[in-house]
């Protein structure tokens, strides 16, 4: 399966391009920054640190659609990067740790849905939040920071198969802009 994945036309075209992988990585960073950036705002509200003058439900309505949109972007670019060298990433310890942390993030969210969320009507507008909400918020921050650390570590431990860095770019910016060489 993994071997098939890295032989697909998409994986090959990303590997063969000088630009696609860096662009995918950049979009991945934009996406994860928006995921963590928006989640942190909600977590800090649940911890009573910031935005305590706004109801939690308003915050969730404002934030979570952007969190999910950004997560979709991050998962898509992450999947495409994974496909370029699936076998190596699959066996990389930090990649596995990162996937495990993502599962934990989902479970953490589930805990919130099954506990604090059910009584949200009672504490929505107040600055004080139930202890379980504070636990979930703390876990959320720790897990997402862990995801970022593990993600960055993948780049330092998994050997990427891309075009060698000494190959010439196929776009020459001088030609593009008509500048003298």
């Amino acid at each position, binding site marked *: 399966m993994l071997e098939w994945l890295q032989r697909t036309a998409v994986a090959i075209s990303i590997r063969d391009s*000088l*630009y696609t*992988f*860096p*662009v995918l*990585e*950049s979009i991945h*960073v*934009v996406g*994860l*920054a*928006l*995921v*963590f*950036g*928006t989640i*942190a*705002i909600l977590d800090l509200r649940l911890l009573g640190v*910031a*935005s305590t003058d*706004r109801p939690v439900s*308003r915050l969730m309505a*404002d*934030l979570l659609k*952007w969190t999910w949109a950004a997560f979709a972007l991050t998962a898509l670019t992450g999947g495409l990067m994974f496909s370029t060298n699936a076998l190596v990433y699959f066996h990389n310890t930090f990649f596995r740790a990162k996937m495990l942390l993502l599962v934990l993030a989902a479970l953490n969210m589930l805990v919130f849905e099954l506990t604090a969320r059910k009584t949200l009507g009672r504490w929505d507008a107040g600055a004080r939040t139930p202890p379980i909400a504070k636990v979930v918020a703390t876990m959320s921050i720790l897990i997402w*920071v862990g995801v*970022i*650390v593990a993600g*960055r*570590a993948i*780049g*330092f431990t998994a050997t990427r198969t891309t075009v060698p*860095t*000494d190959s*010439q*770019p196929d*776009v*020459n*910016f*001088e030609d593009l802009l008509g500048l003298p*060489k």
Partner: protein
Amino acid sequence: MNQFALWLASTPPSVFIQEHNAWAIPAIQSVHIVGIALVMGSVLMIDLRILGLAWTDSTLRQTTNRFGPWLTGSLWLLLATGLLMVVGEPVRELVSFSFWLKMALVALGAVVAISFQRALRRHEQQWERTVAHSPSLKLLAVVTFFVWIGVIFLGRLIAYDHVWGSWSPAQRL
């Protein structure tokens, strides 16, 4: 700049980071990314408020008061971790086209953020009533958001400076 980068690489703090680069560089980069996330979250919220897509029950001033300090604080964190990366890998950073273009965009983004917060504080009444709804401010919100996205792209491209071809000074070393 090459000479300066080489001199910086020979200083004790740089040597220390180089000797511990196996964990130091990924660790510094991870903190840098957390800072980027806080900046992007804050910028997104202020921009969505200007566009009328979120925080509509708060005034522009309230929204800026909530996120302005986080934005500024995170930018300081990014400056600190960024400086550590320059000290740790001077040649990689200073002899790259992406790095300098990124610095120009960061300066632009910071100037817009600071002057926006200042103008809002000085003419609060007028801003809430008229300026907050002006199309030019909405356009500025969108443009600023993409300036920060550009900063992220260029930050990542420092690792791939060869994509700039002969524009990258690293290619001429």
